[in-house]
């Protein structure tokens, strides 16, 4: 029996040499990716990295400029319609119908996936419960708060129980509890065999959820691997020094430069961090040298590298080093 196109490869998502330009802006500059079936794959990157662009191409909302991509075995350009039967999308901005109730929204989306009416209704009900919207289920979405809209939008992405799920910054705009609930829901889905591609700017989110992570910056995948593989890139552990006097930050960085490459200065936190070896003995030396330099220490840590540190060592910039306008846009977008 011929293998149906939807099952011809082991990978749920295959991306080859993908580029996308908007006029002069190169949003993607040659992305290669392979996402195994049934895992949560994290796409991690700062504002403007190209995460949304990649998601939009993979969900057939936009054609690529060059290169190819397939999802669930379907080519994004040649088999767009079949592809869309296999996916669910929660875009960066919640897309819900203001004038329909929560239940009606979900039921309609389910019907557009061609589920029978009874089944559509059943799934709408159960998702409304799962996303803690029972009281609001019969209210028009226009009365929803930003976080409620976001949850409704996520429920809509799940309603067809798609094979591959795309979540573009799913937890932006959610309160801590909703965020945790969503994390649990995503983990459950992955256990059930759903492939999830999620983008995030929250390094802890990728760390917690994704079994593999691709770090995207300026339209390129600059690193890929498991969270621990990426952490190994930093090489050992990180020394972080918080100083009392912000005026001494640069001096501190100069001193710490002796212990590892490219110390990073976080002005807001009054902190300088640097990747060092595994030997905890270095701490005594750090304290002594700082003391000699007359630098007052507010706090001192010898810790496992976070993905923040990974990002720093990969790009020389912090992931959060985006301009303010972008950050506010992302926050507003998520809760719109």
């Amino acid at each position: 029996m011929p293998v149906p196109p939807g099952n011809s490869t082991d990978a749920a998502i295959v991306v080859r040499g993908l580029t996308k330009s908007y006029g002069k802006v190169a949003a993607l500059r040659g992305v290669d990716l392979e996402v195994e079936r049934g895992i949560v794959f994290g796409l991690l990157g700062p504002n403007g990295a190209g995460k949304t662009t990649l998601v939009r191409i993979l969900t057939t909302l936009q054609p690529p400029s060059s290169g190819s991509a397939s999802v669930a075995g379907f080519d994004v350009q040649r088999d767009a319609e079949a592809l869309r039967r296999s996916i669910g999308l929660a875009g960066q901005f919640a897309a819900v119908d203001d004038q329909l109730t929560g239940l009606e929204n979900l039921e309609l989306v389910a019907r557009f996936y061609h589920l029978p009416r009874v089944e559509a209704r059943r799934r709408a009900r159960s998702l409304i419960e799962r996303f803690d919207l029972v009281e609001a289920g019969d209210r028009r979405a226009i009365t929803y708060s930003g976080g409620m809209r976001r949850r409704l939008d996520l429920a809509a992405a799940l309603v067809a129980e798609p094979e591959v799920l795309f979540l573009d910054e799913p937890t932006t705009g959610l309160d801590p509890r909703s965020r945790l609930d969503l994390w649990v829901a995503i983990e459950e889905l992955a256990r059930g065999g759903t492939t999830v591609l999620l983008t995030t700017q929250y390094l802890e989110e990728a760390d917690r959820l994704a079994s593999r992570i691709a770090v995207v910056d300026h339209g390129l995948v600059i690193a890929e691997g498991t969270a621990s593989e990426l952490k190994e890139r930093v090489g050992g552990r990180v020394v972080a020094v918080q100083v009392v006097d912000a005026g001494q930050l640069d001096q501190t960085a100069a001193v710490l430069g002796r212990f590892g490459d490219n110390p990073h200065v976080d002005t807001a936190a009054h902190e300088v961090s640097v990747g060092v070896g595994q030997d905890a003995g270095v701490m005594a030396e750090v304290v002594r040298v700082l003391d000699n330099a007359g630098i007052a220490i507010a706090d001192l840590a010898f810790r496992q590298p976070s993905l923040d540190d990974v990002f720093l060592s990969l790009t020389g910039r912090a992931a959060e080093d985006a301009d303010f306008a972008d950050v506010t846009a992302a926050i507003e977008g998520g809760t719109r």
Partner: protein
Amino acid sequence: MTVATHLEPTPAAPPRPPVEQPSTGTKLRWAVQDTLLMTRRNLLRYVRLPENLMGVTVQPIMFLVLFTYVLGGAIRVTTPDYVTYLLPGIIVQTMLFGAMITGFGLAQDQLSGLFERYRSLPMARSTVITGRLLADVIANIFVAALMIAVGVAMGFRFGGSVAESLAMPAVAILFALPISGFFAAVGLTVRSMEAMNTTFIVIFPLTFISSAFVPVESMPSWLQPIADANPFTIAVNAARALALGEDATGDLVRTGVWVTLLTVIAVPLAVRAYNRPR
């Protein structure tokens, strides 16, 4: 004692059933079903936001009343009375205003980001447009019936057969359909609702430089050829002849030609506007 010498990779997720490839018949059924679902959704929005219909109900009725009682006496027409002259014209005009709602509805959905979801769903991309058009045709039927009822209350009487009487609003609705297509293209393209409002400036004079409110012969001679060539005049003349029970063949044929022509231009424009990557 070593039980396992190496760690097994995480067990592979259970295989999912393959996505079935639908037959052509199934696809066709889905297309129809999707359009009906989208139509229902749009009609539901009419019900929940009745103010969207104000422009095509309250306003034309106000026009009908004001024109008939304030200006009607001063306008010389060949019909028995002015309301009989005016009603077919104002119905065609109102159906065109209804066509503008097509554009407004699509602009609203587009700007709210809702199409981001629709475009990722496994329905034909044209569903958004066909479902919109069908809902707006249904709304137009409702509005036309309302206008006729008000007209009858004001003394309007059909002069022809039942078929001709039914054909009068039908011509108006049909004529508005390709115009809806144009507004769909605009609505799918605009980047703000304000931009959408400017379309009113185009449609409004077009409906006045016509035979809808006054006979073309009463206009200055330089304006008459423009009014005569206006496709809106042709549709109004067809609707009026049907209302009076006069021979409408010529005007109907010309209206049909215009509808065909406008459709051929409008549909690709609308589809292209919807498929335009953004």
